[in-house]
């Protein structure tokens, strides 16, 4: 019996990574849910938008690194992030002007937007592959750890170590800032309020003189900021590979739907729910159990519910359960 070590093992392999991953998913899901609330369609290009934002940031980071600029212990990518956001915002606004605005004027059915977003996804994916290629790119620099496993062991005298990577701590801080800023914007500013009004009741909003084009423009800029931040944080934490970003689409959608599409608070809760279930279900609990159980009872197997390759199955299963029992999501979102 060694409760403390068991908790540390759990924190090291489940809680810390899941919190970071959950924050990344939440940022992604916030983007999806905003587009859904304002423009009323599920944006399949969101994963590739994240990839594009991360790519611009990486290119700027490399330029900064080459120029010898650095943030000391923090990754240089933070400095490049605003430029990445600006680049992505330009791309998204351009896409809106060229693609989506036409369908808005036509009052097309939502599914037409979704198909258009497929086309956009193709183009963005092609652009990213064209510019940076399909390979893994590493762009993290600065300190690797806030606490490394060895320091933690020396500090506490426990046999298990707890490592917190800079990218994980950074993810949480940046995500928190983003979310606070977003909620402040939505609830306190005039533009934010008009966005919420537009999302709640489009006709009423138009009647009160809200300019829909401005609302859409602001939405795309915010989405660009959220997507780029999510993409860069994910890239810093894991690594940047265009195809993984496409695959993130499923957990992100699952987070947004589980929380209730169109509901920002739900997107955050959904992100953490999906991340924690994914990691808990695919984590091998053997070491955790070894600390808790008497030696004679030590388990033979890995105590892993599902192999990590099935992590998509977890988000999918949660998605199915929510769709079956509560199609509007855990927090009240829009349906139909």
């Amino acid at each position, binding site marked *: 019996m060694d409760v403390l070590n068991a908790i540390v093992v759990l924190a090291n392999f489940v809680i810390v990574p899941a919190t970071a991953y959950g924050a990344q998913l939440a940022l992604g899901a916030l983007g999806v849910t905003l587009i859904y609330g304002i423009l009323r369609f599920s944006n399949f290009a969101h994963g590739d938008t994240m990839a594009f934002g991360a790519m611009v940031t990486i290119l700027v980071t490399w330029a900064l690194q080459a120029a010898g600029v650095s943030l000391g212990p923090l990754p240089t990518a933070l400095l490049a992030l605003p430029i990445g956001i600006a680049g992505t915002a330009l791309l998204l606004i351009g896409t809106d002007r060229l693609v989506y605005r036409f369908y808005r004027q036509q009052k097309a059915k939502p599914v037409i937007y979704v198909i258009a977003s497929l086309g*956009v996804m193709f183009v963005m994916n092609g652009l990213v592959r064209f510019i940076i290629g399909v390979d893994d790119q590493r762009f993290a620099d600065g300190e690797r750890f806030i606490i490394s496993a060895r320091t933690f062991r020396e500090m506490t005298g426990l046999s298990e170590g707890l490592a917190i990577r800079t990218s994980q701590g950074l993810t949480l801080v940046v995500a928190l800032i983003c979310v606070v800023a977003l909620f402040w914007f939505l609830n306190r500013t005039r533009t934010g309020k008009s966005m919420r009004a537009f999302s709640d009741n489009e006709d009423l909003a138009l009647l009160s003189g809200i300019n829909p084009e401005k609302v859409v423009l602001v939405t795309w800029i915010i989405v660009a900021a959220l997507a780029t931040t999510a993409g860069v944080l994910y890239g810093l934490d894991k690594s940047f590979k265009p195809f993984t970003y496409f695959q993130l689409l499923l957990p992100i959608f699952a987070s947004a739907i589980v929380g209730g599409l169109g509901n920002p608070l739900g997107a955050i809760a959904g992100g953490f729910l999906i991340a924690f279930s994914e990691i808990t279900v695919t984590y091998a609990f053997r070491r955790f159990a070894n600390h808790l159980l008497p030696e004679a009872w030590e388990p033979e197997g890995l105590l892993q519910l599902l192999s990590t390759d099935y992590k998509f199955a977890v988000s999918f299963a949660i998605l199915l359960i929510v769709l079956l029992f509560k199609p509007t999501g855990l927090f009240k979102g829009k349906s139909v």
Partner: protein
Amino acid sequence: MTQINGKNLLFFGLVAALFIGTGVMQSWNTMLTILNMGLISAIMALGVNMQWGYAGLFNVGILGFTALGGLAAVLVSMPPVPESWAAGGPRILLALAAGAASIFATVMVYKKMPAGLLRVVIMLAVLIGGFMIYRAIFDPARDAIEAVDPALTGYLGGLGLPMLLAWPVGGLFAAGAAWLVGKTALGLRSDYLAIATLGIAEIILAVLKNEDWLARGVKNVTGLPRPWPVPYEVELQEAAWFLSLAERFGADPVTASSILVKLSYGMLFAIVLLVLIWMSEMALKSPWGRMMRAIRDNEVSSEAMGKDVTKRHLQIFILGSAICGIAGAMMTTLDGQLVPGTYNPLRFTFLIWVMVIVGGSGNNWGAVLGGFLIWWLWIMVEPIGLWLMQTITAGMAEDNGLRQHLIDSAAHMRLLTMGLFLLLMLRFNPRGLIPER
């Protein structure tokens, strides 16, 4: 339903000219390779067109249904591995049965018990207990099977039946998966179905990649037997009648045998395609088809007429997915191997969508035309892109970094081009090349 008019014939003529042009300019062998995959793509487009064009359902899990078809090809045609069956075959089946039984028991608990906390607790207990039992039987059986000569087999093998049988079985597999997805996601908003299909496709692929006992996972199953009338090149090259035939045409026996094999595949695929088109056209003309289009055009009024919209949607979703499954089995037959690593959603799901939108949604002939045209472009954009890049960069120095990068990136041009095709078509000609009448 399609009128035979000048414009439509012209389109088909143009696509035929593209293929013949490829035959003359490059080689007939290349052209037949593209044509065979074009036939399969046309069948997939037909299936998607049923879902989208007839009923307005948005399916982005084509990849999964295709992969299930491929699995069917392996499970039906490969010879069984007796050692593996002896090692753990019955136990695996027992484990799967236990898993299915626990899910069934959970559903029964949900249906029979009154709602409340107690029901949730019992459901969870049944599910978790069932999962433990399943894993307890399954894990040792799987390890035993995968330990049998892992370099060659390490899986249960198939049934050793004729390959042609695998095609309808592939359809059945896909239909089963489609039922599961449709049952949950249909009747909700349209994009939920899209997301659910995206998910099931990822899961099917994960199963194919990781369940080695089933179809060897990423170790791939190779050397699938060919369907009945298709000969093997090696045998052809030894047959006297074939050698004399090749001599009469003045052709190299090796090339000629390869062409003959591809031709026989092409004939088989063409027969399937024609039968499917005929069936879909008949269905579209029938009262059932009219009902489908009525539902698509106005769900509310169809419901008022007493039509069960969700049930009809489920029906057509299963039918369309089954066609994708058949096409998937055919594709694995053509390749002669199942390689789960090559299943890429961009290539299998989204490209088929470009075919349907460009060809003409709601029109079977349009979907078929789109299938051929887009597949040809997909193959040809790469060499064309490479040529374009070389022309653009011709003025730069040989070792120029930008030039190298541009030439290397030419391969990614196809995604960009296909995306542009889709967007332009959707914007300027949303009804497609051959619109619905």
